[in-house]
């Protein structure tokens, strides 16, 4: 029987593993030691490892991010956690002006091994300031490694690599919708480079490059299209937005000639724009059709459910766009019903 694990369990396991394997590991942030424990991922750690290494913080994101710099320079491994990605905007001076540049600006005299986790909210009216997926802002800046683990196995291998092997600053965005998904754990060993794109599903007709929770939507869409239309989508989990080697994406596009990019953040200047850039500068002739994108509407996220539904892309968006790519615009094929999609999706309820 295949072993399974939820995303949340993988996070909890990774945090404890980091604390056990590195006596200099710190875990801190707002809510780290409260009874919710960052959606359960840091529960029990303060008790096990003590308040010196696991602690709640004042609402001082700027100083708490700068704290990681001095701590990392002195042999500690800070893990700073934000329960909403939106709050990381309060850390940007430290992240962009100091953390991203510390190694380079001083000519390689220093390294800053550290991890910043943050959670992207979605559903149940998270609204404009509790739902943003700002990976593009971080990935824009040289010096940062930006990851968006899309499965339990990804969390395990990526965080283990960040803590135990990698010597630089890592920014991770975790999607709240992923937390309750249960994933099969592969028998295969972890990828040689955990900071690289991953093949999530092989296919021949259309390439879908997706990040974070959109990988789940893309996989659901791929199964649906295979079943309903015999169209086989190849799904690539971009995973590491700052990966320099996009060979996996390019070879897939060369094979299928058709590309859809599915992001949790806005399309302009984001992952959609970047993947299109990569294809355009490397091999634009590989495309047999214009590229398509599945991304939130170019607006702040609205709160009302009716508006939220039209704001976000979902598996139906992916199916629709892939049909258009593979069969031509105005494909006329039926799309998955709301009822069908609801059964697949794990939305969360409640104010937190």
């Amino acid at each position, binding site marked *: 029987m295949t072993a399974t694990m939820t995303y949340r369990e993988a996070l909890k396991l990774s945090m404890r593993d980091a604390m056990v394997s590195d006596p200099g590991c*710190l875990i801190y942030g707002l809510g780290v030691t409260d009874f919710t424990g960052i959606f359960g991922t840091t529960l029990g750690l303060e008790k096990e490892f003590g308040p*010196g*290494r696991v602690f709640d*913080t*004042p609402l*001082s994101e*700027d*100083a*708490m*991010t*700068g*704290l*990681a*710099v*001095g*701590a*990392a*320079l*002195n*042999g*500690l491994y*800070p893990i700073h956690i934000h329960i909403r990605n939106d709050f990381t905007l309060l850390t940007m*001076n*430290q992240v962009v*002006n*100091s953390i991203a540049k*510390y*190694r*380079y*600006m*001083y*000519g*390689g*005299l*220093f390294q800053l091994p550290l991890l910043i986790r943050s959670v992207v909210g979605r559903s149940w009216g998270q609204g404009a300031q509790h739902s943003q997926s700002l990976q593009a802002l971080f990935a824009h800046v*040289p*010096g940062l*490694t930006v990851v968006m683990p899309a499965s339990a196995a990804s969390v395990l291998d990526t965080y283990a690599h960040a803590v135990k092997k990698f010597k*630089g600053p890592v920014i991770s965005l975790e999607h709240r919708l992923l937390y309750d998904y249960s994933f099969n754990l592969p028998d295969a060993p972890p990828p040689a480079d955990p900071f690289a794109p991953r093949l999530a599903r092989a296919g021949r007709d259309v390439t879908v490059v997706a990040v974070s929770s959109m990988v789940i939507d893309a996989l659901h869409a791929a199964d649906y299209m295979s079943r309903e239309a015999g169209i086989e989508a190849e799904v690539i989990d971009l995973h590491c937005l*700052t990966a320099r080697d996009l060979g996996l994406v390019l070879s897939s596009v060369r094979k299928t000639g058709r590309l859809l990019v599915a992001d949790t953040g806005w399309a302009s200047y984001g992952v959609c724009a970047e993947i299109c850039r990569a294809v355009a500068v490397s091999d634009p002739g590989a495309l047999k059709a214009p590229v398509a994108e599945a991304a939130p509407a170019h607006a702040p996220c609205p709160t009302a459910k009716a508006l939220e539904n039209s704001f976000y892309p979902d598996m139906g968006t992916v199916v629709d766009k892939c049909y258009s790519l593979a069969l031509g615009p105005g494909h006329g094929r039926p799309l998955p019903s709301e009822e069908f999609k609801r059964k697949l999706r794990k939305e969360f309820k409640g104010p937190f």
Partner: protein
Amino acid sequence: MQAGRGGAGVTAPSYRELFRQALRVRLAELKVAEIYPSDKIQSPVHLSLGQEHHAAALAASLLPGDQVYTTYRSHALYLAQGGDMKKMFAELYGRAGGISGGKAGSMHLCAPEAGLMGSSAIVGATLPHAMGAAYAFKLKNEPRVAVSVTGDGSTEEGVFSECLNFSSLKKLPVVFVVENNGLAIHARIENRQAYRLEALAGAYGIRYAMAPDGFDLEGVAAAFAPVLAASRAGEGPAVFEIKTCRYLQHVGVDGDLDKGYRCPREVGDWRCRDPLETDAALADELRPEIEREIDEAVAFAEASPVPPASDTFKDVI
């Protein structure tokens, strides 16, 4: 030469040694100003002229293992703390032999071997870095102190108050040294601050001490020593304010007393009791050896190769 560390904080540093170190900084800065019009130094320089004295006093008071985090006006601390002068000039010249191979320039000097762990061009950015170092020292139970050295403008940044709060909450061995020259670029302190620094520190339960005359070499060292010792002994953070004077413009090598935003007499009052100018006899005695060191440093920089273009892509991630 680990200049300036001789006092090692155990015995009070001598006037002569503090004077020598301050003069060394003064003459090096004047050399930078002399070279600057030649365009060999293509980097904004924020000279420490007028602020050398307290840098010498601070550095001489620290123990090996202590760390300093500071600002873009960092030449004085770099040299006083024991940074290599040759590498500094090469860095200003943008040469491969510089501290950071030409990637830092004047504004980001560091000397990790001497405990200077970084200098930022973003006001206040290094305050929490010092606090993080102090967190590590305390967690590892090491008798070390982290010292943040920033200007009076940095106390207006939100992060200053954030750092006062957290360092007090955790009783961290960090000293926030505030170099108060009364100016933030061209903005005067009375137009910027509605608070008294002592009261601000007090609100967070933080010890406060002041050196009213930053030019008093021994006075600054004497006032700083107990502040440092208390933090080292586990009494938590402190704010240490030093009143001083910036002789030149904010950035560059020219004076600006004719620009109308500050009174020439304010600077004149400081200058007429600047020991580096009034104690001419000692300055004359020490100058030749220092000038030799500076000449060697400049020659080293001039001879150092430019960094290869491939360095552009090195050490990014």
